[in-house]
């Protein structure tokens, strides 16, 4: 008889886990997925495309209902799990329903961080996390609308570009002196800056938000230097926090996220965690690729197959069409590294490779990212470059051409 497997969270990690289980352990578990959002699992990455009007909402759905049914999955969505009873091995929902499990997988994702500043609760201040946020933005968007996006990271830039595509007049404000400072060096960031400004987005760097102002609804963002940015809508995208609330309450080991080992197992052997809620070897990931890798590893583990997750060398692809940006590994170049740089302002391209001990350690690609997977593979494999080094910067086709 198949053992009950409950998944809390109905996001991309959960969907991929179910898919992977279908591949490696079909019928071994009776799977039940609990999701707080009242819809089928969807591709969160595509929200910026929806916002930009490039994609209908329906196209974000990861799998149709028929697929879930075919997988034999019980879907419980629009209902929030409120507790885990590890003693009796069941998940308790808001309405008191108890769902027994033999194995429990936490795929609770993360929550947007809200700035602890005055006015953040005013109507018109939204985050950029789910369909409701996108709905709110689209409702307000248009040429007559002024938007301020707070946060010049990946998500903030995608929100700003999405809004700009609707004709909304967008100002992107960022606390740091360059955009995507966790993924880009100054030169790449400045190219990105120029690309955003070419789309009509006003970018303010070193802009410290003091407050959101308004009588009853958003009217302006005030900066610490006193500047006021009048606006009709504010999007905050200043980061995410792993959602470990349930786990913490259940007494599982947590740090920033839910601590898991290389088998994605928490401090309770019956409970696993994957995706943005998990913390593996001290790292909480905020991207989809590690979540998918974790889902695949966990599926194999649950199927009794040998599998271990050893972490993911992070690679970032900015999903803004026409602004290809890629970053991976040690892109800044710590002490003891060597850098190779290629720039062509005429093609708006910039490429930087960081080498350590004769192997590729990091890369930034701006304007032209076709070689990203090749570089990423070289970074992840750590294989010695040898004579490839002098051709490396020119990309796979030219480097490997006879």
């Amino acid at each position, binding site marked *: 008889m198949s053992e009950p497997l409950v998944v809390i969270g109905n996001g991309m990690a959960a969907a991929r886990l179910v898919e992977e289980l279908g591949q490696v352990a079909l019928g071994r578990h009776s799977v039940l997925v609990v999701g707080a959002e009242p819809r089928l699992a969807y591709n969160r*990455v595509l929200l910026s495309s929806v916002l930009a009007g490039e994609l209908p909402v329906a196209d974000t759905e990861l799998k149709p209902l028929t697929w879930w049914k075919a997988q034999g999955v019980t879907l419980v969505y629009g209902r929030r799990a409120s507790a885990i009873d590890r003693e009796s091995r069941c998940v308790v929902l808001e309405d008191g329903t108890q769902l027994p499990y033999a194995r429990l997988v936490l795929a609770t994702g993360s929550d947007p961080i809200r700035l602890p500043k005055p006015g953040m609760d005013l109507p018109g201040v939204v985050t950029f996390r789910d369909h409701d946020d996108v709905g709110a933005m689209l409702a307000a968007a248009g040429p007559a609308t002024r938007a301020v996006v707070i946060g010049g990271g990946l998500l903030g830039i995608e929100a700003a570009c999405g809004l700009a595509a609707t004709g909304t007049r967008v100002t992107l404000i960022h606390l740091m002196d360059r955009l995507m400072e966790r993924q880009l060096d100054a030169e790449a960031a400045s190219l990105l800056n120029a690309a955003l400004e070419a789309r009509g987005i006003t970018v303010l760097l070193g802009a410290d938000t003091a407050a959101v102002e308004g009588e009853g609804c958003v009217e302006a963002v005030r900066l610490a230097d006193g500047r006021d940015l009048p606006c009709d809508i504010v999007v905050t995208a200043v980061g995410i926090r792993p959602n470990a609330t349930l786990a913490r309450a259940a007494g599982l080991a947590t740090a920033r996220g839910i601590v898991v080992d290389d088998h994605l197992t928490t401090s309770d052997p019956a409970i696993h965690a994957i995706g943005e809620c998990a913390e593996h070897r001290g790292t909480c990931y905020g991207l989809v*690729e590690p979540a998918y890798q974790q889902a695949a590893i966990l599926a194999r583990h649950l199927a009794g197959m040998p599998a271990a997750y050893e972490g993911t060398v992070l690679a970032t692809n900015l999903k803004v069409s026409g602004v290809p940006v890629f970053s991976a590994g040690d892109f800044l170049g710590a002490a003891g590294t*060597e850098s190779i740089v*290629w720039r062509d302002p*005429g093609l708006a*391209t910039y490429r930087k490779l960081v080498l350590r001990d004769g192997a590729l350690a990091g890369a930034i690609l701006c304007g*032209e990212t*076709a070689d990203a997977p090749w570089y990423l593979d070289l970074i992840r494999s750590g294989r010695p470059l040898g004579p490839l*080094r002098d051709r490396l910067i*020119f990309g796979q086709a030219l480097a490997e051409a006879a």
Partner: protein
Amino acid sequence: MAIHGSLPNPVATACPYCGVGCGVVASVGAAGQVTVAGDPAHPANRGRLCVKGSTLGETVDLEGRLLHPMMRTRTGSMQRVSWDTALDAVADGFQRAIRDGGPDATALYLSGQLLTEDYYVANKLMKGFVGTANVDTNSRLCMASSVAGHRRAFGSDTVPGTYEDLDEADLLILVGSNAAWCHPILWQRMVANQKARGARIVVVDPRRTASAAEADLVLQIRPGADGVLFSGLLVFLADTGALDDAYVAAHTEGLDAALVRAREIAPSIAVTAAATGLAADDVERLFGWFAATPRAVTLYSQGVNQSAQGTDKVSAILNCHLATGRIGRPGMGPFSLTGQPNAMGGREVGGLANMLAAHMGFSAGDIDRVRRFWGAPRMAEREGLKAVQMFEAVAAGAIRALWVMGTNPAASMPRADHVRRALTGLDLLVVSENVLSNDTVNAGAHILLPAAAWGEKDGTVTNSERRITRQRSFLPLPGEVRPDWWILAEVGRRLGFGEAFSWTDPAAIFREHAALSGFENRGTRDFDIAGLAALSDADYAALQPVQWPVRTRSDRRDKRFFGSGGFFTADGRARLVAIAPPALAEATDPARPFLLNTGRLRDQWHTMTRTGKAPTLGRHSPEPCVAIHPADAEAAGLADGDIARLDTAHGTARLRVVHDAGQARGEVFAPIHWTGETSAEARVGALVQAANDPFSGQPEMKATRVALARVPTATDGFVLCRGEAPRIDGLLWTKVAVGGGAGLLFAAPEATDGPALIRRTAGPGTTVAEVGDPARGIYRAAAFRGDRLEAVVFVGPGARAAWNGVQALFGRPVLDAASRRALLSGRSAEGLPDPGPTVCACFSVGLTAVAAAIGAGAADVNAVGRTTKAGTNCGSCRSEIRKLLARTGSPVPA
């Protein structure tokens, strides 16, 4: 440039390079572009051309041309002046020098590039009117030893044979001649003979040259030992009964003495082999072949001539042909291959200090005859100074006014640094030139006279087989450029000799020259073209290639000489000569343990004034180099591609090392082509000693002792730019012609500031694309104005390997993005798969791959993902893939 309406098009003319004298047909296109093809009607080449001739069209642009007379101002700068001002200044300067030091205080140094008509006027002016025979020419460096050898043996400077002999010979012996590179069309005729008729080709040369590659026998001889080899041959022929006793008895003198000396030098094959460094078997094979092959031609060139014993080397060869009577009959004879298009024409007019005019010398009778013909007021009464001595006299202050025409002695003379310094001390240095700048111009020329170049000038040239060919103009005279004969005649008029220099066109000069050749000749002189003295202007314009002698208008006799004797000595007999024991002018010593040989490359010619403009020719061997045997190189610590410093008693150069197993141990070879104009430190002439032949005055340019030392370099690199390439102090740079601009290859003794170099090269208003790998010392940059590539700089490892590929991209007017991205890699984007626009950013899957997957049957997004990985990570592209699937229609069911 506007094209002169009245010039015919296309035009049959002669190639301006080597002495083969090929006919070419030049056409000028609507946009002024010049194309050149071989002239099928010309007997020298029958339509064939070598790579240098084929690319003449790449060399006729006006970049760097001297277009107006110029004079040096008091501050030292050059200033444009009128022709009147310049010509008056030349005449004044010469008059002043004559007044202060006599006629011998003046001199002309001419060129085998000049046309016969130019040469004639120069020779007449100096030897008949100024009154000095200080008229010498760069032919002194080329074939003066042949002239002296001919005159000593034949009583005249006569090349006895014709090119047809090369087709009809059964044995072709090349001595000191790399004809495959230096006379390619004749070489092709010889190889065709080898293939079709089985003629044997023997190459005698200290180097294993390109000619050696196709030879039946290669004798890699010790430098300076040619006289030993041919002495040994004479002995062998005598001892094996192979002499033509009847011919010797009827037509020659001196065999006995020559043979006695030959026996002293090379009494046996064993001694010959030992003294020449050859295997006895090889020597015996050559001797046996020669003895058994009546139809034998011995061709010789600079390896024989450029020697302090060049005349004796020529004599040693002539001795063997005279003693066997193998001369002047089909398929046999000695054959001097000349290096220049009109060295022969220069010899005909007497454009050498030791000739008077029309193959006459300085006998009292000859002087009187020429005086009467010219109506000359002030005949030169004795030989003038030959090139080496002429520049010594310049250095010593004995010559105060020198006029150089169409040649670059500050680069090409032996001890060229010494010569360059000497030029700066002249009261008057006049240079007639095509170019604004070269080593001689820059040696302090006071007056620059813009002379017509090939394609513009009009007259005749004579090739190695005595064939006169019209060199016709097909381009208008640009700027204020004038033909050399006109410039000379104008100076003659200003010196007060208006009547004698009153020609209005080259036809009139040619008629006078032809008339002088026939004047009181009556068969006493070999050079006689009296049959052409009455050509009308129209006849001259239409003159077909014609071989002399042309004693009458209908002279149709066989053009060979001496088959039945008839030498131009007093008694009509040829002279066999007892040569001096062969020895080099100097030997190596421990401080300078190598012998430096100098010579030519396949695709360059002389000092590159013309060939240096052709991108096609720049590809074969773009940099000045020194070839050395790999074992010698290893012992000297010189890797292939290193830079070596060459040190002789006379100068230094720094050249790229090329390992060449064709070099003999202890000998190195450096091409002569580069000058201070084209490279930083590659003036090979500056290395060469000035020891010269006692008869011909030709210097020993192929055996100077030299030391080699490795020059440490930090990096290699190159620059490409539109317009003039910058000269960069501190770099060992070499200019290279490239399509669409100029190139500079360089080696850098110290680290090079690449970013500064591209800024300096590209100029303002450009966008610079660059790659830097500081840890590897790599810097590469390309400057663009829009999508037009303006300049490229490569520094560091890989630059050399990228040179050709980048040059090809540089030749394009604009670059597409793919080529632009490939540019700095040094690799071509051609043939690389075009991935198409990116569909899946996560896995960089392009449209091409997605379409291919759909075409191969992928029916839905997941199937495409399974094949290509597209859409399997973030999924952003899945809807795009879906659209592609829909557009493609129903895929073929699996």
